[in-house]
């Protein structure tokens, strides 16, 4: 267990260092989410949007950003030619854990900036900030969990371009729906117990995240090794 943790930590450190040097993924995603938000704001034309629509738009931008940025994690290893060495030196689960945490952290950073810009641009009033943060964090974890395995899958295919969004979007529908309804509740609030009203959605998100990550851990070796 100790060795497994230190191996996963070493892999995460390597990726974090590479990311901090180039800031490629975070920069691309930041520019993307901000421009997407501006487009949405322009399209709304200054009209006040319903809280449900706001929640939906926020999660659509998050989903597209994830599909854009997270597909890189394994493709980059293939392009740098480091994938063989990694395969020799690390077990599948440590690689998965490292990439999962990396994806989670980078999407969380991007989402925090996105959330700030979203609240300011649309002058949103949040009824329950705590619930909003929990929803974003849980949703990000589920998103990272599902995307990591799919990113490993598309790194093994010949035509990578549009494949990740196509695999990812339908699979993430359950997570997205729960996330949107929880976000909606956190924005508008209900008179008697917003948290209790959101409990169903939060539980469904936690369940989805748990199932997706456990399945990924069990399946990852089959994608990783030849």
């Amino acid at each position, binding site marked *: 267990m100790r060795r497994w943790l230190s191996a996963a930590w070493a892999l995460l450190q390597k990726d974090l260092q590479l990311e901090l040097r180039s800031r490629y993924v975070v920069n691309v995603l930041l520019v993307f989410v901000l421009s997407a938000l501006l487009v949405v704001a322009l399209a709304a034309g200054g009209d006040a949007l319903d809280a449900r629509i706001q929640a939906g738009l926020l999660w659509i931008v998050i989903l597209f950003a994830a599909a854009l940025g997270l597909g890189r994690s394994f493709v980059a290893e293939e392009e740098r030619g480091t994938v063989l060495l990694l395969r020799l030196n690390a077990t599948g689960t440590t690689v998965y854990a490292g990439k999962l945490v990396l994806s989670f952290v980078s999407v969380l950073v991007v989402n925090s900036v996105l959330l700030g810009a979203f609240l300011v641009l649309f002058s949103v009033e949040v009824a329950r900030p705590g619930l909003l943060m929990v929803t974003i964090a849980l949703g990000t974890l589920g998103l990272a969990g*599902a995307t990591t*395995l*799919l990113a490993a*899958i598309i790194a*093994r*295919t*010949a*035509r*990578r371009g549009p*494949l990740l969004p*196509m*695999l990812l*979007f*339908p*699979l993430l*529908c*359950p997570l997205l*729906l*729960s996330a949107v309804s929880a976000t909606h509740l956190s924005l508008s609030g209900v008179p008697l117990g917003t948290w209790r009203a959101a409990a*169903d*959605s939060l539980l*469904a998100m936690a*369940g*989805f995240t748990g*199932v*997706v990550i456990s*399945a*990924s851990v069990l*399946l990852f070796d*089959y*994608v990783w090794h*030849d």
Partner: protein
Amino acid sequence: MSLTGACYRSIRLALVAWMTLVLLAAFSFGGLLLNVPRIPILEHTARNLYFHVPMWFTMMALTAMAAWQSFRCLKTGDLECDMRARAAVHVAILFGVLGLLTGSYWAHYTWYEGTDIWWNFDPKQTMAAVQVLIYGAYFALRNSLDEPEKRARISAVYNVFAFVTVPFLLYVLPRQMESLHPGAEGNPAFSEITHPVMRLVFYPAIAGFIGVAWLLYRQRVRTYRLEAAADRRGSEALIGHMH
């Protein structure tokens, strides 16, 4: 599963007879033997129960079969299992599309009677459409993998992964949202609203449609086997030619 031709043909004949009886029973009018209870608006469209609902049972059976074959493929690396998973997904998509069509057509004349609506975003309906898309993506993924062993393994991983998320689509979320389907929030479950007479046709219809799906699935598997054999012979001939 190795069936002789004669055995296969007799099962097929039995299925044809069975489905003929089911169809006759489904459309038997005038209180001959199995009339449906007449409920305003529903009237005779209640007979859609014999078609729409078995489509989903059949699709679930096929996706479970596909996931099982994919799981076996991961364990053994056998390409035969990959063929079977592919055939099962193929037929599952067919039944999914039929389920969507029968549902949406029926709802146009009952739920949305007097309106122009063909498709309303009822959670169960939308989730079923998403499930069909998930399995459509399976074929797109297969097309972007060239090497047979790798294609078998990677697409099996995707298939198993997709299968574990399906319960959320079909059972968890639709029950948390408002829906017109039975068993959703506040609606009575299927067992409370279905007249016993209709069950006499409904259960045999489920068995019959699953049987039809099995026939189609066997057909696809045999086609894939022939294609694989033809490919092998083709490449052997090519190698022989080059020498």
